[in-house]
């Protein structure tokens, strides 16, 4: 299905055949084509999405440019579906091309579950615009009224006469036309969508199944040397001395180069520094790197140890914190409650650990720094590299390969900047390969967190007051030296509790960051949802009530919650509150559906249990029910999970299911055994043996996903499946065993 562009036949809408456009000699790299540069260049004199995203070849092939990174969420397929649908293109006559980093595409930062939200309407309009151009070109050719013509499945048709013209016959004419203005273009009615909705099989399937997909380390350029880098074990430490004599003796080793140090906070996206070994192949570079003898300087982060830090966070939670949401009088309400309940939760640092470790190739030729990277955010690569090397951004060309998973790690372009630095320094073509150990030890970590929740119940066991305190090193510290006050993390499951309560308060404590803190799939929702949805189950238990009934009652009547009016400056994921209100009816609906599918309330055998959680994140509503069995010696198995998602309008229903399944397994990994711990500033884990992520036997044997039919605007899909899984799992464990998990990972807690 996935066909790439033959440059020699490429035609552009405006200028026809490509002439005078630099086509790079890439003997072995023909897949992730470089010609998107040409598309962007064409668009420079006509800021038109039609030209930016769509090109028609002489044979009628529609070339659709995808400007979002493909990392398993099937962005390339979804973008193609939207454009091809509005364009009335035959699905078998399209080709997908991956865009370079270029501001003309607007936002290309593929995180925050925003690809469809930001682009559905924009790409529909682009496709519809070209459809109008095809219709008008055909009408002109026939000398008939455009109103008597329509475009259908790669043909323009004159309705009165039945004559048709194929896109191939119209390619030249369309190339010379100006696109109509947006107000002269009408998009299709929803009922006429062919590809948007149920969706198509993924465009990269054949490549993936045969090993032909080009991921970052698969890029093959002439005369490439491979670099493996030894990085400082503690953030802000640098090389004091290096003895490379033995490394240089390894056959195949070509050079040893010290990287620029990164010793000043904030660390930002800059590489960490260290020493690079360049060799003719990966194995030689790796052996050479192991022979380096490096002394590292002290770092202000040398005192960071996970155990002591946990106490510091928990102590912060015993004090009043910075208040982000306050309604009523929580202190008084808690004092006056018939019953109060308090619990503390802990979630460790985590690493994204995508299956493809970071990798990038770079070369510097004729003043142009060209990079091939598995980046989620190619424009960030451009600006970091330009700034670091004193180049204009226009001199930095970033090719986006397929990503072997991203999960937030690959939003940070430090690894591409390493390749760029080495290429610039040596004049060679350099591929930087991160080992798994580098990925686990030198990441941008999901933060560690401690939370304290306290609630009051009335005589009838109804929830009356809620206080949530959360303390964690903030992502802000990566960008602002010494930052301790959280930023957008408070919008992710802390200042948006969906409960109909008179007394409610959300606070954060302040602690310093001593690792590079980044974001990982669903970010702070992971720990906030784990704590709040576990605590809700604890409260139901304390009240002697059914968890589902208790939760539905706490959410209260159907309404659109106006957090601003209630004293919370909730950012709503940047979504307009008219288009994306916080709708409790939708929240309750997914909860009811998931529990119905799971037959909630049924009798369970000894050692088995069901648990639930519901959460709104990235503007989508997700409820998860997990069934567990825990053996007498504490072995956990998960026969089944049920997920119901309301993400508004969806483009590819099966990809949404896939993301809910994958998001659930990602949440499982965060719960089961994985933890990044730190001693004297250095990460103690190194590979998948001591950083254990979920394997097939741990996974639910099946995950039943229901996607709610909705015509609401599209919301996020990549991340919202993750947050509810861990609390649903731990609530199921409680139902099965009576054991309450308040600290992740679960690890050996069930056999203790």
């Amino acid at each position, binding site marked *: 299905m996935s066909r790439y562009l033959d440059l020699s036949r490429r035609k552009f809408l405006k200028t026809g055949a490509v002439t005078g456009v630099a086509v790079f000699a890439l003997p072995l790299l023909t897949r992730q084509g470089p010609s998107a540069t040409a598309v962007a260049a064409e668009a420079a004199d006509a800021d038109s999405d039609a030209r930016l995203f769509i090109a028609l070849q002489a044979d009628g092939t529609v070339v659709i440019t995808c400007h979002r990174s493909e990392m398993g969420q099937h962005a390339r397929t979804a973008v193609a579906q939207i454009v091809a649908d509005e364009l009335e293109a035959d699905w078998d006559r399209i080709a997908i091309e991956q865009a370079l980093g270029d501001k003309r595409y607007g936002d290309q930062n593929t995180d925050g579950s925003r690809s469809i939200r930001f682009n559905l309407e924009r790409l529909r309009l682009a496709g519809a615009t070209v459809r109008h151009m095809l219709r008008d070109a055909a009408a002109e050719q026939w000398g008939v009224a455009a109103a008597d013509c329509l475009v259908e499945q790669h043909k323009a048709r004159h309705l009165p006469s039945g004559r048709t013209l194929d896109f191939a016959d119209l390619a030249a004419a369309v190339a010379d036309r100006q696109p109509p203005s947006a107000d002269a273009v009408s998009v299709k009615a929803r009922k006429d969508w062919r590809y948007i909705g149920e969706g198509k099989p993924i465009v990269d399937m054949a490549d993936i199944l045969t090993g032909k997909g080009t991921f970052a380390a698969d890029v093959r350029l002439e005369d490439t040397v491979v670099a493996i880098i030894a990085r400082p074990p503690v953030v802000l430490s640098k090389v004091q001395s290096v003895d490379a004599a033995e490394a240089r003796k390894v056959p195949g080793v070509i050079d040893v180069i010290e990287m620029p140090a990164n010793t000043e906070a904030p660390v930002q996206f800059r590489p960490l520094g260290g020493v690079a070994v360049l060799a003719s192949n990966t194995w030689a570079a790796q052996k050479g790197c192991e022979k380096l003898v490096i002394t590292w300087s002290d770092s202000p982060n040398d005192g960071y140890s996970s155990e002591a830090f946990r106490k510091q966070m928990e102590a912060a939670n015993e004090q009043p914190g910075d208040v982000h949401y306050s309604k009523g009088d929580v202190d008084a309400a808690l004092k006056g409650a018939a019953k109060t309940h308090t619990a503390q939760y802990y979630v460790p640092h985590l690493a994204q650990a995508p299956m493809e470790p970071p990798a990038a190739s770079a070369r510097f030729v004729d003043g142009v720094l060209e990079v091939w990277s598995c980046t989620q955010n190619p424009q960030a690569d451009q600006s970091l590299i330009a700034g670091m090397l004193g180049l204009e951004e226009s001199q930095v060309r970033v090719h986006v390969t397929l990503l072997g998973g991203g999960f937030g790690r690959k939003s940070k372009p430090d690894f591409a900047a390493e390749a760029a630095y080495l290429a610039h320094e040596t004049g060679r073509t350099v591929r930087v390969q991160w080992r798994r150990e580098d990925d686990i030890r030198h990441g941008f970590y999901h933060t560690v967190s401690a939370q304290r929740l306290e609630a009051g119940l009335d005589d009838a066991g109804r929830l009356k007051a809620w206080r949530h305190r959360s303390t964690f090193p903030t992502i802000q510290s990566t960008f602002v030296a010494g930052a301790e006050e959280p930023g957008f993390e408070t919008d992710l499951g802390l200042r948006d509790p969906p409960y109909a309560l008179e007394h409610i308060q959300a606070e954060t404590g302040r602690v310093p960051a001593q690792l590079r803190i980044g974001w990982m799939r669903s970010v702070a929702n992971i720990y906030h949802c784990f704590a709040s949805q576990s605590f809700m189950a604890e409260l139901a238990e304390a009240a002697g009530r059914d968890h589902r009934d208790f939760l539905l009652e706490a959410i209260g009547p159907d309404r659109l919650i106006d957090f601003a009016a209630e004293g919370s400056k909730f950012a709503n994921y940047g979504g307009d509150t008219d288009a994306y209100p916080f709708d409790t009816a939708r929240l309750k609906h997914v909860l009811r559906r998931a529990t119905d599918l799971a037959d909630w309330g049924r009798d369970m055998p000894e050692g088995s249990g069901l648990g639930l959680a519901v959460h709104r994140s990235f503007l989508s509503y997700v409820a998860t029910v997990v069934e567990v069995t825990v053996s007498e010696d504490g072995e956990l198995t998960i026969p089944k999970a049920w997920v119901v998602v309301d993400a508004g309008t969806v483009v590819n229903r099966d990809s949404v299911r*896939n993301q809910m399944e994958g998001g659930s397994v990602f949440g499982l990994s965060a719960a089961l055994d994985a933890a990044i711990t730190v001693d004297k500033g250095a990460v103690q884990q190194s590979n998948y043996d001591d950083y254990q992520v979920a*394997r097939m036997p741990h996974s639910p044997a099946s995950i039943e996903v229901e996607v709610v039919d909705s015509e609401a605007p599209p919301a996020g899909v990549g991340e919202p499946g993750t947050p509810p899984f861990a609390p649903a799992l731990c609530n199921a464990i409680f139902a099965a065993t009576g054991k309450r998990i308040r600290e992740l990972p679960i690890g050996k807690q069930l056999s203790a």
Partner: protein
Amino acid sequence: MIELTVNGEKHSTEAEGDMPLLWYLRDIANLTGTKFGCGAGFCGACTVHIDGTAQRSCSVPLSEAANREITTIEGLAVNGDHPVQQAWAKHQVPQCGYCQPGQIMQASSLLSDNPAPSSADIDSAMQGNLCRCGTYPRIKAALLDLAEKAS
């Protein structure tokens, strides 16, 4: 000089005997379908067949691969239509796809030993192959589908 057969073709190389087969395949033979994930046999992304059996190419030195028959994802089926590949397409298994060559090589080895594996057999055979995207339920469904056809 080390000689080996890769996807039916004779290879001879001056590469060092301690170089893992993975890096020979990727860096010297330019067969990049076999992926690097961990370098230590923990993740299965580099799985190939050696004399018909799934092994981790990151943990097999080239000297041990000498005179053996190696099959990589590129050589599993000429047209990419091995029953496992077809089942993977039918069940829309891949998300990012990075681990899938290794999963497919592991799964095809399992099926040649045991054409109708049970769910427990599948767990046991596939537990060494990590997928961070979480495609495990679909991999299992695809394999159970093949098992049903075989039995």
